[in-house]
């Protein structure tokens, strides 16, 4: 599923909203998560998972093709840890899943 498909699905479920509004809603959510991470905050969504950031120290890397060493500066990377409920859902037998979905 890609973002536009997500927007379409939500727009169908919410006929009182314009598709443009649904798009803004999805973007507002994603932007809020991204901005929080940019500030170094954690984002915890129970039942789904948690986003956080980790600092990576500067290091000397190597171009694998040429063997040249290149310096890689310090950076921050986003990490995601799947929530407990989601982890369990991913491992439900498919049959159970279909009956559980509404």
């Amino acid at each position, binding site marked *: 599923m*890609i973002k536009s498909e997500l927007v379409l699905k*939500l727009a169908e479920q*919410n006929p009182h909203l314009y598709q443009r509004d649904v798009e803004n809603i*999805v973007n507002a959510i994603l932007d809020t*998560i991204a901005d929080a991470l*940019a*500030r170094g905050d954690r984002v915890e*969504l129970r039942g789904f998972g948690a986003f956080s950031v980790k600092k990576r120290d500067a290091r000397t890397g190597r171009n694998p093709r040429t063997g040249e060493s290149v310096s890689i500066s310090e950076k921050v*990377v986003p990490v995601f840890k799947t929530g407990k409920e989601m982890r369990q859902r991913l491992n439900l037998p498919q049959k159970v899943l279909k009956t559980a979905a509404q």
Partner: protein
Amino acid sequence: MAGKTVTRADLSEAVYQKVGLSRTESAELVERVLAEICDSLAVGETVKLSSFGSFIVRSKGERVGRNPKTGVEVPINPRHVMVFKPSNVLKAHINGEVATGED
């Protein structure tokens, strides 16, 4: 990096501020968005959110693990796990840069 923790409440506040729905409806929609993402992943489907990142479901094979405390071998059953692959745009944003290149 001790910061605050952003939760569903902050996401619905953002939706409320930016989209102009009622607070109740904003909260419901945040829930619906997450539920749709979860439902897709639960059936093994990849979810790609452009300029944010992708959630991918991976299958792990069975392997032998070891209880690190006792050293006892335990079989780890095959299972599905979900991984998040951040987009270049997100990675750049977090580092206070502007993304270059595709995506």
